[in-house]
């Protein structure tokens, strides 16, 4: 596609439910990032995928968070047993996977946990 696509754009859920967020990266981009952005804050790194290498999960805030990526395509971020503090915009970015890379971002998924 022309850009990074994320779905859904908005998600409202009840505390304790599981949610799954999807990211379609730009074709040909081997690297994929997930970030969390709380209101008025910067981007908080969550996880990084590069090709077939083991992902860097060092930014995941708890074991309720997990992410998968199939090859160099779609990625899903799953949050289990959501809490109110999980409310944020979740941004996905992709890049060619080289040092100093430009990251191309999707519009994000706005998650609201009631």
């Amino acid at each position, binding site marked *: 596609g022309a850009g990074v696509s994320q779905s859904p754009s908005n998600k409202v859920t009840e505390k304790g439910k599981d949610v799954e967020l999807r990211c379609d990266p730009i074709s040909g981009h081997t690297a994929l990032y997930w970030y969390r952005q709380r209101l*008025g804050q*910067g981007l908080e790194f969550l996880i990084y995928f590069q090709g077939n290498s083991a992902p860097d999960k060092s930014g995941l805030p708890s074991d309720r968070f997990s992410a998968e990526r199939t090859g160099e395509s779609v990625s899903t971020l799953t949050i289990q047993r959501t809490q109110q503090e999980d409310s944020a915009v979740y941004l996905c970015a992709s890049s060619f996977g080289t040092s*100093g890379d430009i990251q191309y971002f999707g519009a994000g998924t706005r998650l609201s946990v009631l």
Partner: protein
Amino acid sequence: SQKIEQNSEALNIQEGKTATLTCNYTNYSPAYLQWYRQDPGRGPVFLLLIRENEKEKRKERLKVTFDTTLKQSLFHITASQPADSATYLCAHSSGTYKYIFGTGTRLKVLA
């Protein structure tokens, strides 16, 4: 730990003036520093990248400087326009894939 700081207060300037945004870093020397623009409800969009061995980079009305002595990058928008109003984020990397983002500075250009 590595820290990157941007002025969290909004910057208001008059149309036609030069806007200057600051990004300070501590406890490390970034190999790359990037600037992104973020509009409400959108993801960040890349603007400029500067490497540690570069002093200055330009692109149209945009200019970025990198002072490794002061541990600071400045981002300038000359002849600013109301359409330049947005939040501007800086992000650094030590040379790997991992970037650390600042909280951003909101710029408002007044007509």
